[in-house]
């Protein structure tokens, strides 16, 4: 879920002709993520990210994001406990809570720029770090592939900026 924060249309002019045009967007994004690593853990994590995105006139997207989060892992197998008398029991929903930081960048394509499709597709590489993980920090690269649906553009934050270049 993304909340637009700032939206700037930039047009670079030369002899009153547009030679380059792009949209600079700033968003606050709330995400629910999950991955499954067999026999290791499942990780369900929530993040709030600051997103900087640039969409070219032809539709190509590049973006950078960073933010904090919260992670809850679920161990990838039955978890046993043994008490001092040697009695074994099973722990339900075994796993850990971690603080999380994420940083990443991605590339994609916005179909709404050329066609009237409110969709965009993006491939994003994130690095998540979880702590305290065994008294240290756990790093993990995560590749996200996705399709985004944009119901409507936010009208109240759009600003149009033209940058003329003289010869």
């Amino acid at each position, binding site marked *: 879920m993304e909340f637009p924060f700032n939206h700037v249309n930039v047009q670079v002019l030369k002899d009153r002709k547009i030679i380059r045009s792009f949209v600079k967007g700033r968003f606050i994004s709330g995400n629910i993520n999950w991955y499954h690593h067999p026999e290791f853990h499942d990780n369900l994590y929530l993040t709030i990210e600051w997103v900087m995105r640039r969409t070219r006139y032809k539709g190509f997207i590049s973006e950078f994001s960073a933010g904090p989060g919260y992670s809850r892992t679920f*161990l990838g197998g039955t978890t*046993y406990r043994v008490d001092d008398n040697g009695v074994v029991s099973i722990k339900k929903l075994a796993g850990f809570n971690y603080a999380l930081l994420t940083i990443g960048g991605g590339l994609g394509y916005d179909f709404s720029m050329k066609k009237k499709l409110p969709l965009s597709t993006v491939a994003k590489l994130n690095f998540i770090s979880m702590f305290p993980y065994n008294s240290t920090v756990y790093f993990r690269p995560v590749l996200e592939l996705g399709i985004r649906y944009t119901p409507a553009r936010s009208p109240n934050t759009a600003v149009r900026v033209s940058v003329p270049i003289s010869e």
Partner: protein
Amino acid sequence: MRKIYFISFLFFFLGCQKERITISENASEAFYVENAGASMRVSVQGNTSGKIFILVIHGGPGVSSYFYDTKYIKKNLGDKCAMVYWDQRNAGASQGTCNGTKLHLEQMVDDLKKVVEVLKYRYGEDISLFLLGHSFGGLITAGFITKPGYQNMIKGVIYVDGSHNYPLNDTLTRQMLLSEGQYQIAQKKNVDKWEPIVSYCRSHKGNFSLEESQQLEKYSTEAEDYIDSINHISIFTEVIKYTVPDKYPLTAILCNLLYSEDSNFNKELAVSNYSYSLNVVTIPVLILWGKFDFTCPLALGEDFYSRINSFNKSIAVSPQSGHNMILQDKKFFCNEVSAFVLKYK
């Protein structure tokens, strides 16, 4: 709708953690043992129906048991018995939060006891369980079998290039580096490589600090590269080969290794010594050693052999191995282990 999503997620995670116990000739499963702030992964591979289990206690501290689970062992030992790979606390796929203060030897011996108890709970009290301790795992094994009553929980011990006495280990490593180094220099083999090692050993004669101990360990790993008779293997290639098919949690393994290598725990290890309590050991013991193991020299295995009071004990030496006999002389290793467990099951 939100409630449905929540319940679906809950069922999914509960499903992943549902107890599954496979009794077959080709079992492959993993579970976790939680103890004192650590959830430690235990993987069981091979023949569980034969009721013979070999629990591998990996080296390190901080190395993972994933590296011991090779195709060759699966094929040549896994057909007769179940290989159990336990990731110690703060190692491999084991997980936790602020548990660094619990990283000490006594705690790890207690962890091992809990793993043994869970194995018996899952597969039956009647299983024949053997411990296989390698390198640092030898120290945990020695700690376990010298605890009153603990050796009765197992059928026997396979001791592979292990260390039960770290101060003695350092002394023997220095002696071996010095004597082999001088011999190699006299033979004019890798003279430029051996000279700094020999020089270091000459100037550091004993009562070693942690830094000196770590330097000797570094040289002992390096020295293996300069011995022609060793079957050289690349650990890096082995890791690459198994990372994807065995689904290694590579970054977790790395983070745990870096933490354990730097932890204060190593100061405790530097003075750990079980030599004087080994006389209580009476169960069958097989000692396997690499002839060119500089990290834990053969004399350490001989010290272990002479101190235990087992009636059934033997020592076998691989002429083409260094510290990693399990990978360097796999055929020798599997044959010896197989014969031992079938005899004393």
